[in-house]
């Protein structure tokens, strides 16, 4: 297995279309981060897009590096990477930087990292590694417990930051991996029902604690222990479930985002002309990050928004094709997992900006401002390339 990469093989097998889609998305991201942060009076923040550009450069380097190395090596290293990710998450809780009430960032020689984003990738690797072990029986409950357990540890650590949206990504990815790996349908349904019941319980506790015989104190306790959410966070969920609760307060971002998207119409108002971000109705703290899609939808309209979704569809399609054509289980699962990660982020983020889903703070891959997530996504897509490039087992080359 320990063979170096060959240039010809890389060129022949790599999916240039995927690279094209990814590059297009990154460029779009930089352009609209610039547009969305132009409203900020602070000249340093106006240069946000340059930092995004720098992160993208580093990310593409990582993308290439991971693509040329056989993904099997990374899967084998999954356990170690997972361990490193957990250590970083613990460090974040201990000595991380607190911004907007949550402790998510870690200082690293002058720049800040968001370990939770790296942990997503590490979790995928270790889960794929476990599932593709020869001794793993994918039909047994035990496998599910192991995979879900592997997801639960980083999820719990992320929940303490607190960051519910990111925390929920881990179990969701775990379920997708179990699904692809052939975990029996009946057991999956059972797992799903338990999850649905849990969510239902929380939703009812949120909107009408009286129906569960809960007082306000009990409600607070449930949310602190079960979700790690601060009050403002579950208030946000309350508003999503009951939009009339507080239109100018917690529902404000959703409302403004909807106005931005809707105002875009067919062709949008033009690049840099999006009033919602320029005038600060879409707060300048979220416009280049979580709500970048609203900015794009307002400025480029339905056509631009659909084009963006098509680019993601292209990425996801390439990922699916890679999984389909993978020759081993590890490659198939890894490609599926990475594809699912991209898809889930796109779906949840866009769903959040158009009022379909609650505001959870998941970024739009490759486009939202945010260095670590850019690195993690590009690294993940590099792995995806690697699955495609190194389709045939190294021995048989």
């Amino acid at each position: 297995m320990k063979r170096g990469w060959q240039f010809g093989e890389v060129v022949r097998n790599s999916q240039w279309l995927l690279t094209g889609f990814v590059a297009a998305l990154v460029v779009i991201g930089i352009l609209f981060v610039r547009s969305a942060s132009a409203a900020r009076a602070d000249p340093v923040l106006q240069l946000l897009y340059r930092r995004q550009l720098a992160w993208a450069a580093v990310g593409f380097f990582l993308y290439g590096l991971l693509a040329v190395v056989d993904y099997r090596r990374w899967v084998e290293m999954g356990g170690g990477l997972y361990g490193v990710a957990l250590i970083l998450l613990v460090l974040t809780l201990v000595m991380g930087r607190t911004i907007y009430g949550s402790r998510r960032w870690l200082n690293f020689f002058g720049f800040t990292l968001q370990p939770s984003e790296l942990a997503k990738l590490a979790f995928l690797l270790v889960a794929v590694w476990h599932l593709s072990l020869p001794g793993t029986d994918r039909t047994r409950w035990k496998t599910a417990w192991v995979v879900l357990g592997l997801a639960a540890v980083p999820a719990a650590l992320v929940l303490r930051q607190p960051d519910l949206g990111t925390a929920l990504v881990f179990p969701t990815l775990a379920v997708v991996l179990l699904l692809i790996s052939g975990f029996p349908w009946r057991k999956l349904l059972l797992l799903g029902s338990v999850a649905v019941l849990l969510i239902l319980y929380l939703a009812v506790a949120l909107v009408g604690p009286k129906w569960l015989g809960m007082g306000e104190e009990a409600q607070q306790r449930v949310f602190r222990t079960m979700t790690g959410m601060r009050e403002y966070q579950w208030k946000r969920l309350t508003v999503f479930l009951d939009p009339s609760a507080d239109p100018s307060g917690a529902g404000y971002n959703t409302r403004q985002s909807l106005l931005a998207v809707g105002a875009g119409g067919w062709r949008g108002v033009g690049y840099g002309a999006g009033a919602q971000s320029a005038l600060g109705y879409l707060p300048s703290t979220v416009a280049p990050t979580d709500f970048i899609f609203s900015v794009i939808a307002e400025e480029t309209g339905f056509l631009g928004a659909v084009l963006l979704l098509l680019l993601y569809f292209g990425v996801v399609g390439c990922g699916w094709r890679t999984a389909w054509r993978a020759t081993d289980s590890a490659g198939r699962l890894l490609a599926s997992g990475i594809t699912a990660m991209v898809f889930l982020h796109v779906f949840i983020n866009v769903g959040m900006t158009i009022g379909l889903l609650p505001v959870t703070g998941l970024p739009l891959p490759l486009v939202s401002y945010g260095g670590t997530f850019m690195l993690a996504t590009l690294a993940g897509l590099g792995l995806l390339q690697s699955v495609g490039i190194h389709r045939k087992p190294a021995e048989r080359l």
Partner: protein
Amino acid sequence: MNRISGSTEKNRLVFWGGCMVAGFLYLGALLWRIQIVQGATYADDQRRQSRRAIRLSGIRGRIEDCHGVGLAVNRPDYGLVLRLEQYRQPGRWSRTIEAVGEDLKRVAALIGRPAEEAAAQLTRVARARRALPVPLWARLTPQETARFLEHRFLFRGIEIEVEPRRFYPYGSLAGHVIGYVGEREWTPEETRTFHYVLPEMVGRAGIERRYDEVLRGEPGRRVVLVDAAGYPVLQQERAGLFTPSFLAPRGGGDVRLTLDVSIQRLAEESLGNARGAVVVLDPRTGDVLALCSRPGFDPNHLSKGISVGEWQALQEATAGRPLFPRAIAAFYPPGSLFKPVVAIAALESGDWSVDTAVRCDGVFERGNIRVRCSSLHGHGTITLEKALEVSCNPYFCEMGLQMGLETIRRMAADLGIGRRTGIELDGEQPGLLPDAAWKRRRFGEGWWEGDTANLSIGQGFLGVTPLQMAVVGSALATGGRVPRPRLIRLVRRADGRVEETPLSVRNLGWSVANWNAVVRGLRRAVESPSGTARLVRLSTTSVAAKTGTAEYGAKGSGLVYAWMMAFAPVEAPRVVVAAVVEEGESGGQTAGPVVRRVLSGIFRENEG
């Protein structure tokens, strides 16, 4: 080896791929609904939250005298305003206020105005009206303006703003006619399409009120773009986001009065500090050349907005109720001023001749009627002309009793007594021309001969306004042509249309002989050494006049309304003056000099 085969994984992949495709389609469908189906609604809501429509006040038209001299005009008012967005600080509101505070203090010191005044303004209005400049100090003097302008570059967000302000160049002159303005109050309907409404003046009294519909301008509209915090966004900064929308306010129409500033001033000066009224008409047309009530007020003060205390002071009876337009709304007993009316009524009835003589012993007695004459020992046997000259009470009592109430009443009513003249001012009163039915209603008793005798000498229940007496004077001057007083010469609408007020004169068709006899009597009152109105004799022109001295208050209190009515030149009258002075001595002594001053002023001016 794993028990799960590659084909199971591929089946699952197909399922998961389907899920993802469905997810993308769902997002696409939602975007279609939001951006295409409901896009216009969202775009509308978005526009609404980021635009503020400001109502710009219309510019009031002018009120001018018959020569075009401005009586109510607009003058630029220099004020300092603050553009809050220039001081905007991130974070708490109080930080922005702090940032403003420093500059406020410096400007206040510079122009020498109290900073507290402006600071109060800031805390009161600024927060809710961030899209508008905050007015700090208004009505800057030229010195203050100059001092600020020298240093204006030091203050990034404080600017001079010029606004038209209503100004009455002649102060209290004709205040009751012109009226004044006050800040308009709005109905929700009027302001529905605006976020902010700038103060606008509306006529509160006089012509300003009566002709408000002509004078008030067309409002303008400015739409500004505001950011999420409500601050206006400068156009230059955000070109492309927004096409500016601005509709300039337009000026209103002008009102030209028949009033003549120089005659009005004569009238007001001639009254001095006395309480009373002077009306000057052109008897041929009814044009009101002067309409003056004293005490008066300066519309400039009232339009500025006055305190409750000041307002009450203006209503105060002890101050002579300066807001009360005596010339059109006060009714006084006309006293002997009524005698020519009785005379013409008698002559026109045919039952009394120019030569009918009556003997005056200084007192008129019949039954329980007893009326004293001004002459203690009587005037002897006299005819009408002499009776008018000396204002003999017994003569007119005799005349009145022989004619009867109805004859006198009919003539008085024909001359407009007891009815509003229809002058273009609010608040005109009809006065009172009594009859038997009225007396029964009012006092529950019948009309006695004594009442008729009293009426014949202008006492008793009769009440007339100075304007009505000027109209009566016009009829006497023109041989029975009763003009409707005309205060408005013309109205120039904002769109350029000119509406002239038509003349309106009723001819009573008096016999020339009868009329000439009365005029001769009135002329003798001026020219004869024993005439009651000899004080108004002028060297430049011939004058006919009648005095009146109407007692009021408790009997013997000595309080009289001193009246005089005069017209000139007698041969072709151009001017009629009616004057009344409260708390006077007698018509001749008190009102005489007033009328004389008006007439001599007019005729010296015109002849010289």
